[in-house]
């Protein structure tokens, strides 16, 4: 098949699934909900993460005096587990289930001049909070594509500043930066429906998944996305393990 035809097939799959999602828009009974679990691993040698020169701000240098800062593009834990991978259901979710917005408020902290966590996943319209633990001024500057409906904003957070509470309108992977500390790069990964982020072992659990057949997508900032088909029985657990090849 030529690339053009592959593209066409993929697009038609999207159409069918979108139509399916509209037609089968029944609300799902919460009692039968299951979950999707698994682990994300890196196959090969973990790439070297460069150290960060924070000499622009003596406060940041001091904060890392005993624990040098380094980039967090690829964070590999014990047994090759990949941290900061976001997993979400990209296809198969009934319309009713994906419109329920979690009430929990994920927190994005500016601590020792790095973002903690480096990747913050959230649902469309879910509230999230940006806080600062630092005694130096940051500006929190997410850069969504304004054409998607998510609008860029830019707010200062001097020492002791109150949290900034916001939400996003559309699913999008949004880079976040601080212009004052140019090494500070993070991500808001906004998805529609249930999601999870891998821990330091690369493990994850997506909760509140109604029974059904799904496509699960894994997103890693450097290695991109992978997908897998998963079936979740009523009250049961589906499994999807992912492996990324080291570059």
């Amino acid at each position: 098949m030529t690339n053009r035809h592959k593209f066409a097939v993929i697009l038609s799959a999207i159409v069918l699934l979108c139509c399916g999602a509209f037609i089968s828009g029944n609300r799902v009974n919460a009692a039968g909900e299951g979950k999707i679990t698994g682990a994300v691993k890196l196959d090969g040698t973990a790439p070297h993460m460069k150290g960060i020169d924070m000499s622009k701000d003596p406060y940041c240098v001091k904060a890392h005096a005993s624990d040098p800062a380094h980039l967090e593009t690829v964070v590999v834990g014990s047994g090759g587990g990949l941290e900061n991978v976001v997993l979400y259901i990209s296809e198969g979710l009934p319309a009713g289930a994906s419109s329920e917005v979690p009430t929990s408020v994920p927190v994005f902290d500016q601590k020792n001049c790095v973002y903690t966590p480096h990747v913050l996943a959230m649902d469309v319209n879910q509230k999230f909070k940006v806080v600062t633990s630092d005694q130096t001024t940051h500006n929190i500057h997410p850069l969504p594509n304004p054409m998607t409906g998510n609008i860029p904003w830019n707010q200062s957070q001097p020492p002791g500043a109150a949290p900034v509470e916001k939400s996003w309108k559309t699913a999008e992977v949004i880079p976040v930066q601080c212009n004052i500390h140019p090494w500070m790069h993070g991500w808001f990964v906004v998805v529609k429906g249930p999601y999870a982020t891998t821990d330091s072992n690369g493990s994850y659990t997506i909760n509140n998944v109604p029974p059904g057949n799904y496509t699960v997508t894994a997103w890693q900032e450097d290695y991109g996305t992978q997908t897998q088909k998963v079936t979740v029985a009523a009250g049961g657990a589906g499994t999807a393990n992912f492996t990324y090849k080291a570059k």
Partner: protein
Amino acid sequence: MRTRLRRWSLLLSATAVLVFPLASWAQLTPSDINTRIGTESHIGNITGHAKDAKSDYRRYCVVCHGELGDGNGESFPWVDPKPRDFQLGVFKCRSTPTGTLPTDEDLFDTIARGLDRSNMPQWSTFTKQQRADLVAWVKHFSPRWANEKPGTPIQIPAEPEVTAERIKAGRDVFARVQCWKCHGVLGQANGPSSSTLTDDLGRPIAAFNFTEGARPKCGDTDRDIYRIFMTGLDGTPMPSYADNIKPDEAWDLVFYLRTLMSQHSIEKEMAKKLDLKPVDPNAPAGQQ
């Protein structure tokens, strides 16, 4: 079988493109934009109509801002700062909070004021009606106005009298929120973070230098300066300080910023008498 599959998939993908237009950085087409040709603007009792601005735009604006309003006109390669991309609906000079659309008056004022240190001149030769029509025309390029309302303008309390105490208090605000990180302790745009600043599209951008006699981009009255740091300049590294500077403190900061500017002012004279020293970047936060 194979051919039939192909035919079906092509048909379905065509439907996909028509029914689910996927949002992307991809440009809007002239016909997308033309659906909004009925866009209006309201400035006091003047109503601007996008369709009436077509010839003025083609004559005066298109060379930089481009046929599609994407800032990709013929002069694009030669001007810096780059012309604004109207399709994105993101504007520096607003009276509204960061992340919101500007009001019609904001755009109306920007056209007349021009943008200092850029290729955008002061279009003071236009009549008010022409400017109002151009505001409607600028808005019709972006789908944002169809889905969103402009933000609510920030409240600016009446300007208090300048006093030595206020100037000193303004210096404390300058130290506390660390304006100097980019603008430098003397306002010379040489703070530690000044050399790496980029705009939202990743292009290098300079912090405002208070000392070389230039006018701030979004106006040079005291109220303009107040508005600049309380709304932020969207699309640039300049954030909004609305959550972290109280309205009264904001006036103090305006007075202190005047002391850094090269232009003569009461504030500058007062600071000289006070023998005010620049903030100390090496002192711990809050004690500069």
